[in-house]
């Protein structure tokens, strides 16, 4: 048997973006298994870091993986186990969140969380040159969220934009809806909302609409959900922009790994998939009709 096995280990679909990422991973695996008869894929989803380490151990012990594509649940705890995979001689592709030690991976397909925050912040500043009062929605408490918020805060520093409150919406529509309802009760005037994620933006928008408030000028989400991109494209004033953080980066990483394993094409190195500001002008480019996210 000369089929090579590629292990793919990703966090479970517990929120919208992760769901999109799961979809793209699954879809890439299905597609590539067709394309490359010599490749076999194992896809495992983990609900926490420890489970992800278990999955990687299992792939190493029982599936003789030749390559691992991993989107670490958290960087620190995954560093050791992924290092063990690299030491076993397998190819390692790390996606989105870098490991705590440099140089372990052969290929790094990186998202840029702090860049995501920066781009978002810069848009806010440009959209509100006079400054104003905003509320901020945070994700599930994680390093990712911390990096995004730090980038955002740095970008709005000194711009006259005042953050009234930050609360965790957990990248979840329901939680954000509830929090936004309460923010609307609490503050008589809110100029804009940084929802930081399109799922949260949907909850926020629903709450604003239900309250019938017209003081909020716009809501900035993020991650490029299809539906939201479409609204930006169509000129919805409430959603003037979006910031990408494409869940499809996992598919890119899997595909590049497959190529690297089956050909001599040079695919190692670091590919940063930067966060891009999407506005009405360029929105059409970021609208993927068949994506579930």
């Amino acid at each position, binding site marked *: 048997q000369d089929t090579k096995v590629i292990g793919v280990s990703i966090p479970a*679909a517990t929120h919208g973006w992760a*769901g999109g990422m799961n979809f793209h991973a699954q879809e890439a695996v299905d597609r590539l298994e067709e394309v490359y008869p010599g490749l076999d894929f194992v896809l495992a989803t983990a609900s926490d870091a420890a489970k992800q380490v278990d999955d990687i151990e299992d792939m190493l012990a029982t599936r003789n993986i030749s390559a691992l594509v991993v989107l670490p649940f958290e960087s620190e705890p995954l560093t050791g186990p992924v290092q063990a995979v690299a030491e076993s001689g397998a190819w390692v592709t790390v996606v989105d969140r870098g490991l705590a030690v440099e140089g372990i991976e052969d290929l790094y397909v990186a998202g840029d969380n702090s860049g995501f925050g920066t781009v978002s912040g810069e848009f806010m500043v440009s959209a509100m040159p006079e400054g104003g009062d905003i509320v901020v929605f945070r994700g599930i408490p994680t390093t990712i969220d911390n990096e995004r918020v730090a980038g955002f805060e740095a970008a709005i520093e000194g711009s006259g934009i005042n953050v009234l409150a930050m609360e965790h919406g957990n990248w*979840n529509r329901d939680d954000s*809806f*509830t929090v936004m309802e*309460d*923010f609307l009760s*609490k503050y008589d005037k809110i100029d804009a909302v940084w929802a930081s994620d399109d799922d949260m933006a949907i909850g926020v928008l629903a709450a604003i609409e239900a309250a019938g408030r017209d003081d909020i000028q716009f809501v900035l989400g993020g991650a490029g959900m299809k539906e939201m991109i479409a609204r930006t494209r169509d000129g919805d004033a409430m959603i003037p922009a979006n910031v990408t953080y494409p869940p499809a980066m996992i598919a890119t990483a899997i595909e590049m790994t497959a190529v690297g394993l089956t050909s001599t094409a040079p695919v190692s190195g670091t590919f940063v998939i930067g966060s891009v500001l999407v506005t009405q002008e360029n929105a059409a480019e970021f609208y993927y009709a068949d994506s*579930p996210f």
Partner: protein
Amino acid sequence: MTQTAKISVDLKVLGPILALVALIIVGALLNGNFLSAGNISNVLSRSAFIGIIAVGMTFVITSGGLDLSVGSMAAFIAGLMILVMNGLLPSMGAGWPLVMVGMVTAIVAGTAAGFINGFLITNMRIEAFIVTLGTMGIYRSLVTWLADGGTLSLDFGMRSVIRPIYFDGILGVSWPILVFALVAICGEVVMRRAAFGRHAAAVGSNDQVARYSSVNVNRVRMMTYVMLGVLVGIATIMYVPRLGSASPSTGVLWELEAIAAVIIGGTMLKGGFGRVWGTVIGVLILSLIDNILNLTDGVSPYLNGAIQGVIIILAVILQRDKKAEG
């Protein structure tokens, strides 16, 4: 009974009410908008999902059972309801008939899900904890699979048709609040004044005695699960119109919240005694904690969970059994 017994009984009754009143006072002091009609309406509407479910949970727990699957069941039913409505949209068009179909779907799915839990628990005699832990995993998986890991969204046209179910109402009282109130009142009446409530308490108190007294123990148990399933369906009917979507993260931890509300309300976890009005108060206490935390600043949002935990424990301390003797 004795003096002390009387006082402790009163405390058991007053406990949750006191906790609720204390929370309301704290909320009003912290933020002027707390008692505004808008905020009260928000809190009540959003309590409705958990509240409707918790009323059903009160019966399950009173009869000595438990259901951990309600949160994922709600997510699954919501997903199914959306799929069915999206699927029939081309043939039926966006309108009330389709909404009715969605509602029927939710109720039927809820009934079936409750029946499955009930069947495994009563007829197959498996521990309720295990059965519902299992079905919890199953429904959660199914909705993830249906949604392909992402979000199931109701068609946009349909969404505006169905929205009023959450946001509109009669005389300024929104539908979820009305339905919750109706469910709570019916629940209270059934628990206190109907044979079913008595039977549920009897089964939870001592199922042998119930059996020897010609009570159909299995049917009572089964009924509590089916009823809970139906109520989960009803809660879902209120839930879907709000955001028009369902995802793997819908309804996560609703089960714990519902059970906590039931117990804060004074129902005994080991069964034998339940009160629906207490559950309603429990639900309100839990919603108010969240609401108050959102309305105040100064507390690190990381610590919200800790504050909730402390308040839940305090609310139950207020009504604990005074006597250990006897």
